[in-house]
């Protein structure tokens, strides 16, 4: 059964009567576990596969993480089976039906990890429609990771998602370019996004480099086995390791919460 933190908070802190106060107390008591939000659409199997593989690689670098995702209808095609996975990477499917419930579920996972003495990173899959303009700040949206291909439609979508996340309280927005044919193409895509964000949003986007969508990504989706373990010398695995290292460095520096 999913645990509600509200049920056990009174063991640790005085009761706070109002709903507003309760939310405040919950946030105040939230353990400092780094969290990265991932706006991923339903059926976005390629990006979900990249994220899962990335989480495994970050785990390999000593930051074993949990992926928290709503158990929506598409979950079966997006993710491997829930529970403990490769190198300690855990997949937690929640019954959250909106952003607030997802925030609660994320907090529960953070608390459990903190109680168990685990460090690492919590990756939160957020259905993009849950990130609404003017809905108020969502705590798990403070650090956001977006993935885009060089396709102009994807680039527009990525920028729009950054804009939404910033409006909902996003502080740092990282971008990974995937599916590029060359480093220069990926670099050009990121530069274009970064320039536009600086000009119109007044924000600096953080580059997390380039992932390669080669055959091994599709193999990973089908076989549900991480690329870094099954094909460690593939271009996809090498690119994943580079991106994972940057994320791990950010975790170590405390830049992800």
């Amino acid at each position: 059964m999913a645990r509600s933190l509200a049920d056990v908070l009174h063991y640790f802190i005085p009761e706070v009567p109002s709903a507003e106060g309760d939310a405040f107390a919950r946030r105040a008591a939230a353990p400092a576990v780094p969290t990265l939000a991932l706006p991923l659409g339903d059926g976005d199997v390629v990006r979900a596969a990249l994220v899962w593989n990335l989480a495994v690689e970050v785990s390999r670098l000593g930051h074993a993480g949990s992926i928290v995702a709503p158990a929506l209808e598409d979950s079966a095609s997006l993710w491997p089976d829930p529970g403990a996975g490769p190198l300690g990477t855990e997949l937690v499917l929640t019954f959250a039906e909106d952003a607030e419930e997802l925030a609660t579920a994320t907090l529960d996972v953070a608390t459990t990890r903190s109680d168990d003495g685990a460090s690492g990173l919590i990756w939160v899959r957020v259905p993009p429609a849950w990130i609404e303009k003017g809905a108020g700040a969502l705590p798990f949206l403070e650090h956001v990771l977006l993935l885009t291909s060089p396709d102009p439609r994807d680039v527009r979508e990525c920028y729009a998602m950054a804009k939404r996340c910033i409006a909902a309280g996003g502080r740092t927005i990282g971008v990974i370019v995937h599916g590029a044919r060359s480093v220069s193409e990926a670099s050009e895509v990121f530069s274009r996004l970064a320039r536009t964000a600086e000009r119109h949003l007044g924000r600096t986007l953080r580059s997390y480099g380039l992932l390669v969508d080669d055959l091994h990504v599709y193999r990973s989706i089908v076989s549900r086995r991480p690329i870094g373990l099954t094909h460690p010398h593939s271009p996809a695995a090498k690119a994943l390791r580079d991106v994972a290292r940057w994320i791990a460095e950010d975790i170590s520096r405390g830049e992800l919460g």
Partner: protein
Amino acid sequence: MAELRLVEPPRRAELRRAIRSRLVDLGLVLRTIAEDVLGADSSIDWVGLDPQGGVVLVLVADDTEDLALVARALAQRAWVAARLRDWKQLAPGLGLGPEAPVRVALLAPRFGAAAIAAARALGDPVAAIATYRCVRNGGEVEILLEPVYTETARGEPAVPTSSFRSGLCDADLSLTDEERADLG
């Protein structure tokens, strides 16, 4: 571990069987009422019913047929629409809705920009556009479906221009003309 690799699609019957089991990945919950139906001069891979009693025609194309598939979908849709009244009389137990709309789901190994634009221009009648890839996993061929476009829900207003992988539509992006220009 078995070596996995992208492969050419298997023969038609096997491809159909594999795709049919994955249609749910596109959010298409269909009860198949006919398979390999000879429609307007060519075959309709499946005729299915959605939970509201609407008809969905699923058409699977080969590698080079993406644009032709859109035209074929239009023709097959018109062919089926003209026969729906007869079908209702002949088989009242099918569960066809009183004003059953006929929509199409298009699948091909890849879609060019022209084919996507043409399919989207059809608006409401398009339930889904998706690519399929075939991966050999040991002795079996598995199918990966990746949506290019899926309708959010029956009965909701048609997506005016397009939807993205995020599930948002163009209007949801709320981009200014300047932002669009800067993004290229």
